[in-house]
């Protein structure tokens, strides 16, 4: 009986607390405005094929303008560019990014433009690494 009364009295504050906790979690995990702005810009500059690939897999492929090689750009700000082999597997990682701190969407867009318009210059500054 006592437990039953206590249960009824505690349920309401517990519900409120849970709602607050859920709201706080959503607020805390929301993408920041600048992060969202970077991703919006990236989406505007991706080709329709790249955008579809990014939406489906979280990465997109670009073709190097000089070599014709395929590269995969994953979400991130560093060690996120991979050279692909003929079968589409990552065979070598390339690490390069803008000198100033930028959000992920901006970094990925700069990497895409660099590989599609001046691949040799991008790779000249990049450091390579073994893909994971």
């Amino acid at each position, binding site marked *: 009986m006592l437990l039953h009364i206590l249960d009824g009295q505690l349920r309401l504050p517990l519900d409120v607390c849970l709602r607050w906790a859920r709201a706080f979690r959503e607020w805390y995990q929301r993408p920041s*405005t*600048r*992060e*969202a*702005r*970077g991703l919006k*810009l990236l989406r505007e*500059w991706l*080709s329709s094929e790249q955008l579809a690939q990014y939406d489906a897999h979280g990465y997109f492929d670009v073709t190097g303008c000089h070599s014709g090689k395929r590269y995969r750009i994953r979400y991130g700000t*560093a*060690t996120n560019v991979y050279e692909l082999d003929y079968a589409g597997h990552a065979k070598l990682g390339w*690490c*390069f*990014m*803008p*000198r*100033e*701190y*930028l*959000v992920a*969407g*901006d970094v990925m*867009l*700069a990497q*895409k*433009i*660099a590989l*599609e*318009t*001046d691949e040799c*210059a*991008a790779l000249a*500054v*990049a*450091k390579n690494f073994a893909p994971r």
Partner: protein
Amino acid sequence: MATLIVMNHNGDTRHNFDAEDARALLKAEKRFKELTRAGFTAATRTASGEPVVTRTFDPTAEETLFFPRLVGG
């Protein structure tokens, strides 16, 4: 309305200008030169949407995007 989009730590900053206005055009060209001199790469898009790096100010470009010099990680 044309736009210069400059990537920065806040995402980006957009500078809109009227390409029909001679003074606004001059100001935009000055900003273009300052940014490229500071090491930014400028890119525009072709009609089919492919990015093109440009070394000179294109007053007809709807959007010109600037990103900082690339470095190895």
